[in-house]
């Protein structure tokens, strides 16, 4: 079911946690609220679940305004950050809790609980207590418990945060597949941009109580609307310079001693200061002198991380550049302390913001 937020505002004393957030989660989509801690994403989730009341604005599920509905009448499933499993109940009792509280018939409860146990593959562990389960198993119980009540919307509050990396990646895939299979509208909260890019249908990037940009993961990654999004999602190089020329199709920038031409993506005029945002993987290293007009600098750090190598290059005028290169088939200089040229691989994937 579609979830719509209409001008939702929330203050905690002097701090504004959410400032007129309007946003629509399309029915059946997996939408991620992505942002640094304190950006308001968890508050937004708690407002949807009913644990917080907005100071202004409305929450609409389908066609029903649920802003003032108490949380136990919302029929919204939630998976908490540390799962919040009932420690005194077995896996089975945890999962059946929602239906038991609704006074569903024992036969129906048993049937549905068995289905949920099968769905998350925990049938053999039905009689265990939460402390006898691994982190991944606990998370599956939390998910099954939330799905048992056939929620209109599923909320996931950083559910992978407590898992180690390998298990986290596996669980992301499993959970996404399961949710896609069920076709349930899902709002997922995380501060991990990699996680958000990996499993979302849509991402809403949040900062300081506002949604900065929303869209498909690739769109947000390739066309960040402002420097915050560009920096938070994927990480970027921010290169400051002067606009030499700007016409209908191109912008020419002078960055220190280098001249760079990129497609026009911002309203800038010649003579203005601007910042060029370049992804580390959109830069490559070359021999100095092989590319006149390119940026130059000294390799100050080399970080081989498996399939790629990250270089830190200290450019002219104190500019710091991050460059990633695939490890295979790289020719040219790559040693610490070497002076190199840094080239743009594809100018059309860069973004310019006026300063």
């Amino acid at each position, binding site marked *: 079911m579609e979830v719509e937020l209409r001008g939702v505002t929330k203050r905690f004393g002097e701090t504004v946690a959410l400032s007129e957030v309007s946003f629509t989660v399309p029915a059946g989509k997996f939408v991620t609220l992505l942002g640094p801690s304190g950006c308001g994403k968890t508050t937004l989730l708690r407002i949807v*679940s*009913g*644990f917080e009341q907005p100071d202004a604005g409305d929450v609409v599920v389908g066609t029903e305004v649920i802003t003032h509905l*108490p*949380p*136990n*009448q*919302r*029929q*919204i*499933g*939630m998976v*908490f950050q*540390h799962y*919040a*499993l*009932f*420690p*005194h*109940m077995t896996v089975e009792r945890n999962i059946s*809790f*929602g239906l038991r*509280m*609704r006074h569903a018939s024992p036969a129906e409860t048993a049937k549905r609980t068995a289905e949920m146990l099968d769905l998350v593959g925990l049938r053999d562990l039905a009689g265990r*207590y939460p*402390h006898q389960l691994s982190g991944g198993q606990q998370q599956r119980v939390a998910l099954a*418990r*939330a799905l048992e*009540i056939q929620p209109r919307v599923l909320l996931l509050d950083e559910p992978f945060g407590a898992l180690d990396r390998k298990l986290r990646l596996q669980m992301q895939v499993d959970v996404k597949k399961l949710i896609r299979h069920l076709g349930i509208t899902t709002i997922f909260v995380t501060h991990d941009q990699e996680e958000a890019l990996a499993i979302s249908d849509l991402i809403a990037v949040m900062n300081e109580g506002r949604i900065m940009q929303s869209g498909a993961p690739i769109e947000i990654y390739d066309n960040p609307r402002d420097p915050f999004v560009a920096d938070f999602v994927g990480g970027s190089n921010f290169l400051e310079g002067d606009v030499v020329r700007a016409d209908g199709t191109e912008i020419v920038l002078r960055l220190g001693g280098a001249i760079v031409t990129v497609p026009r993506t911002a309203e800038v005029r010649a003579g203005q200061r601007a910042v060029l945002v370049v992804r580390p993987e959109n830069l490559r290293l070359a021999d100095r002198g092989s590319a006149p007009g390119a940026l130059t600098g000294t390799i100050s750090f080399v970080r081989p991380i498996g399939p790629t190598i990250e270089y830190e290059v200290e450019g002219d005028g104190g500019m710091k550049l991050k460059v990633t290169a695939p490890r295979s088939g790289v020719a040219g200089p790559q040693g610490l302390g070497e002076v190199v040229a840094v080239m743009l691989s594809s100018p059309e994937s860069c973004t310019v913001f006026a300063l």
Partner: protein
Amino acid sequence: MGYLVVFLAIPLLLLFAFGLVDIRAGRVVSGSWTLEHYARVLRDPFYYRIFLRTFWMGTAATVLCLIFGYPVAYLFTRVGPTARQALLVLILAPLLTNAVVRTFGWMIILGGPKGLINALLLHLGLVREPVKILYTMNGVLIGLTQIELPFMILPIIAALEGQDRRLLEAATGLGASWAQTFFHVVVPLSLPGVLAGSALVFVISYTSFVIPALLGGGSFAVIPTFIFEQITALVQWNTGAVLASLLLCTAVVMLWLFNLGSARLLRWQR
């Protein structure tokens, strides 16, 4: 450790030993080892009745403390810091007065036709005849409940404070009402505190002396008051020693059984 041996283990051994020898005119008859005193007590239904009354007194005091204590403990964990301070003083107040003085206070309140309670009831016309509370089991239970409430309330507070508030949100989110959350989540999770408090209150009540002696009166007999009478008034050291060791042993056995039961109830804990 040395203190424990000198002031606990040795007196306890002497206590058991006094039940196994003949004592005449306050002197141990040497070489008179016998099981006769135990046999005499264990054969006599009279003592069983006193033990049963003592057990009932301990159980009733425990249940009363739980009924009155749980709401106070729950309230304590749900109010702000100022109310907490005030509540804590109130909770601990019974422990701040001397046992004998406090019990005399209860005698004034509960006692006779002119006691505070009867005066009030008669004045309000709620009863025609004065109600007999002092020198009855009810009077004893009132006194025991008051003094032992802190021992019930404090462990329950500890258990409630340790609860993860997100569990309550999880329950609510799954559709549970306030009452359902309370009885399905809050209460079961506070069970460790309830059981610890109950064990404390039961043992203290089961072996208490001052309150049953003063509020129960001369004809009210539970094991501790009976032992006192045997030893001080009747100089029956043998009977006193036998009953004292039986009181101790029954208390230990009941605690052990209670712990077995608790462990079963709490097997969800890690």
